[in-house]
């Protein structure tokens, strides 16, 4: 097999389409790069791939033709490729070292066949004319992030002559890989295959050089856009779903069938196959948005949940389309992964995995939550393609925030649920509704991990066990805080501007912040200093609160004429002391409510450690709140944000302790089984 680099060394090739000699096997770089539609993206990383799956040995053999154009302003002296499957070769890889460091304990149970790897068998540079140049011997593994010499997830090939800016090279790569029992949503269980991060994939070349990170346990991916032309050979009768659109099938006559897919302006290609899928197709249509053909590949035991998947996908396509910008592709494939495949809840261009359970009550959050979220990634990741190794918050955070908003907007109330008896049997607690601001943005996860990394660190450097909290939750919470500060109309305009400006590009955090400042018309640098460029936590609290009829004592007026006196008035003096108990600084309102329904309100810049407020009114105050509208959702201790002079504390304590009493009595009787 060959990993070849087809290179027009020195001479720039701008992809020129050539007819294929064999409809199932592309033979030239130009063919791979052939644009089928008007380019929306730079299309500088194009692939023509053929691959064959052997389920018996769980191996995948493939060959690809990469047509890569150097988009940077500097020459590329080498080419770098991601070999993600090698993250699961052994526990010496950076990926698994990080997982173990974070406390993963499921590796011991893996059998010998459960590990995964990819072996590049050849690399050839294919010049515009002449014979391919075999560079296989130059292939070496590098570890640009952590120097781990045992890590084989990035390979480099040094070229004889650098690829000049704007120049195109053709590289032919051949490989063989073993499909693991699922790691990071990729792998197989039983007859279910979900194949992602599966082919040698060229890194992103920037003006600063290669951006080609090793595979880390807490981060995802980063690639350039291109055109993919992929032929996948699987056993006859197996259903295939993949990024893009199926262009044709060809029976190979040996018990296998080749499925031909293509996709334009995408930056990755994933696929799935299984003989067990139930296939459903519906169409998305909404005024003002382009139609989309939705293909759903369901597990048979979830067939009755098809409408829930479609409904959630529709909601995402509609609201993300209206809020940010239309979904630009004609197709989308929703994959419902097999039980215990570990492949659920992951996004790839034009295809995503949802995830549901055999027993999935409608009042609980899934599969709607995961479906909206992963469909939403088509916009934030698929189209606005930030670097997930370095700034994962840009897609995950914005998308978590947006998912909660769609669920709140489109679906009925959802409730807390829990699974019992081996986590098979769900029970929905109708008394415990989930709320968008707190539950939708996963405030509780943020609350439980207060010692987070500084969000501006590259994501791959976050503490792996809690990286998701910073990435998803903290970002969603500060975005929702922004929504409450600026109003949805402004935030929606910010996000749609950002989306429009960076669709099919690779934005940086500074690009996002610039759009926020530009569209809002405010310099919010201070805000991002707090929530993004620091790991500060927030906790504002009411420290003391009194409201009493005025009764001043002492000497008043002219001291020579009068002695000490007590001065009373039919006026109440209300005193409030509020405190900042954590490092984070945020301007907050302080609101006092009086018995007559009136209120007094102050704005505090929140900088000092404490602040006292006093007001005299004819009515007694009943309550005080700091941040009464709960704008600052990152304040994870909201109970101390208020005090009232008419507390319901005893009633609440009585209610909940007596409710718990029933649980305890039942507990005793349950264990009374033994006597």
């Amino acid at each position: 097999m060959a990993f070849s680099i087809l290179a027009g060394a020195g001479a720039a090739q701008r992809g020129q389409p050539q007819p294929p000699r064999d409809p199932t096997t592309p033979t030239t770089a130009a063919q791979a790069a052939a644009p089928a539609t008007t380019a929306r993206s730079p299309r500088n990383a194009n692939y023509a791939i053929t691959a064959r799956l052997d389920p018996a040995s769980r191996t995948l053999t493939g060959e690809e033709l990469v047509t890569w154009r150097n988009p940077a302003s500097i020459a590329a002296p080498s080419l770098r490729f991601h070999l993600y499957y090698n993250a699961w070769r052994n526990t010496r890889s950076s990926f698994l070292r990080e997982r173990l460091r974070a406390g993963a304990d499921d590796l011991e149970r893996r059998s010998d066949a459960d590990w995964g790897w990819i072996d590049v068998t050849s690399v050839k540079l294919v010049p515009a004319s002449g014979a391919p140049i075999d560079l296989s011997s130059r292939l070496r593994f590098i570890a640009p992030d952590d120097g781990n010499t045992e890590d084989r997830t990035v390979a480099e090939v040094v070229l004889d002559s650098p690829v000049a800016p704007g120049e195109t090279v053709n590289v032919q790569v051949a490989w063989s890989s073993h499909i693991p029992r699922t790691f990071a949503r990729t792998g197989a269980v039983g007859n279910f295959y979900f194949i992602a991060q599966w082919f040698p994939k060229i890194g992103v070349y920037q003006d600063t050089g290669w951006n080609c990170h090793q595979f880390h346990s807490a981060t995802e991916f980063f690639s350039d856009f291109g055109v993919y032309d992929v032929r996948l050979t699987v056993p006859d009768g197996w259903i295939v779903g993949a990024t893009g659109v199926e262009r044709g099938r060809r029976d190979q006559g040996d018990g296998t069938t080749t499925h031909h897919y293509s996709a334009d302006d995408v930056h990755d290609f994933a696929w799935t196959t299984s003989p067990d899928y139930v296939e459903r197709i519906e169409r998305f249509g909404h005024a003002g948005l382009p139609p989309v053909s939705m293909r759903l590949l369901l597990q048979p035991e979830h067939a009755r949940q098809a409408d829930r998947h479609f409904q959630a996908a529709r909601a995402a396509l509609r609201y993300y389309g209206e809020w940010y910008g239309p979904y630009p592709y004609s197709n989308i494939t929703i994959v419902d992964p097999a039980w215990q495949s570990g492949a659920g809840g992951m996004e790839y261009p034009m295809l995503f995995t949802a995830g549901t359970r055999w027993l999935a009550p409608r009042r609980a959050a899934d599969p709607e939550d995961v479906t909206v979220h992963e469909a939403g990634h088509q916009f934030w990741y698929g189209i606005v393609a930030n670097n997930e190794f370095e700034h994962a918050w840009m897609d995950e955070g914005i998308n978590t925030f947006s998912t909660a908003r769609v669920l709140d907007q489109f679906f009925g109330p959802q409730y807390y649920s829990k699974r019992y008896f081996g986590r098979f049997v769900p029970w929905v607690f109708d008394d415990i509704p989930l709320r968008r601001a707190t539950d939708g943005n996963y405030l509780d996860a943020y609350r439980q991990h207060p010692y987070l990394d500084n969000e501006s660190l590259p994501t791959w450097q976050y503490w792996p066990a809690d990286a998701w909290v910073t990435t998803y939750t903290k970002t969603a919470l500060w975005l929702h805080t922004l929504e409450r500060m600026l109003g949805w109309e402004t935030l929606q305009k910010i996000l749609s501007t950002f989306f429009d400006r960076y669709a099919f590009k690779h934005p940086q955090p500074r690009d996002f912040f610039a759009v926020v400042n530009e569209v809002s018309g405010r310099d919010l640098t201070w805000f991002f200093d707090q929530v993004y460029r620091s790991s500060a936590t927030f906790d504002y609290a009411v420290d003391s609160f009194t409201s009493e009829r005025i009764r001043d004592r002492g000497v008043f007026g002219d001291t020579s004429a009068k002695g000490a006196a007590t001065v009373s008035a039919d006026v109440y003096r209300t005193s409030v002391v509020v405190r900042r108990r954590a490092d984070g600084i945020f301007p907050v309102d302080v609101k006092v409510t009086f018995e007559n329904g009136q209120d007094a309100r102050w704005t505090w810049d929140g900088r000092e450690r404490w602040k006292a407020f006093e007001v005299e009114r004819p009515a007694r105050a009943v309550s005080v709140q700091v941040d009464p509208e709960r704008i600052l959702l990152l304040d994870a201790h909201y109970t101390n944000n208020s005090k009232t002079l008419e507390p319901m504390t005893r009633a609440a304590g009585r209610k909940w302790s007596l409710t718990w009493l029933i649980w305890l009595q039942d507990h005793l009787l349950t264990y009374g089984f033994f006597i």
Partner: protein
Amino acid sequence: MTVGAAWRDGVRRVNGAPLIVAGMFTFTLLLALPLSIALRGMIEAHLDDSLTAAAAADGTDLDWWNEFSAQASGLGTTFVPSIVGFGAVLDNLGGLLDNLPMAATIAGATVAWMILWSFLSGGVLDRYARQRPTRTHGFFAACGTHFWRFVRLGVLMWLIYGILFAWIHPLLFDELFPWITRDTTVERTAFLVRVALYGVFGALLIGCNLVFDYARIRIVVEDRHSAIGSFVAGARFVRRNPATVRLYLLNASVFLLLALAYALLSPGAPGGFAIWVALAIGQLYILVRHYLKLLFYASQIAYFQGALAHASYTAAPQVVWPDSPAAESIGNASPML
């Protein structure tokens, strides 16, 4: 005696001693109440004088609950959203069947409750066996008489249940279940496997439970002193009388019906006056659970006694009740010369 007749006789015996039901319910309540009061203190301390208290009193504020849980320790860690309504039953049943760890405070309370219940169960079984009021004196005399025998039986019981939960359970659910379902991609199939394993484990549990039930009954009814002897006798009785299994399953079915009714009727944790209705329904459910637990005892005793040559036979234990210190000193005094 048929199973139905034994069950009906058990109902008659439990109904004939309502104070036993009330007493055992009160006992459980009194043991649980101090912990509930302690938890109330924690909740009130966390809520302080905040406006959140009003939301917590009037409904369910999951965000506050999560905030409370995040700072809770000890007893407070057991105050979780799944205690509401029928969730409490699922939480406890699931915890037992899945052998989940419990908070140290709750484990301590559970052990204390089981020891005290064991003490009282001597009097309870004696009362149901005699089918006549035994009065306080007789009740507690029977408690005292049988307690140390139950303690010795308890050692054997914990040994056997220990093997079941420390060895058999992990073997079935942590080793066998993952092994069987390793390549299963259909959740329903895996669930059926798990149900089957619950069946296996449940059969072992019920088998042991039955033997210990009849061992305790034989201690009381036949005034047996040997724990091992009564265990063997209990096992022999169960083996020779398969109807004991049917009676057990009948009682278990009634419990499942009760659980189903509670699942349908349990109003959760509403605000306002409705919370009192919810709490009353909860306590009614607990009261009926006590009734059904006692019905297990009574119907099994009825069945056992029905199988004896002399129905309703109960050996009179040698009740030694201490005299008052004054009477004792008079009795021990040297005769006056």
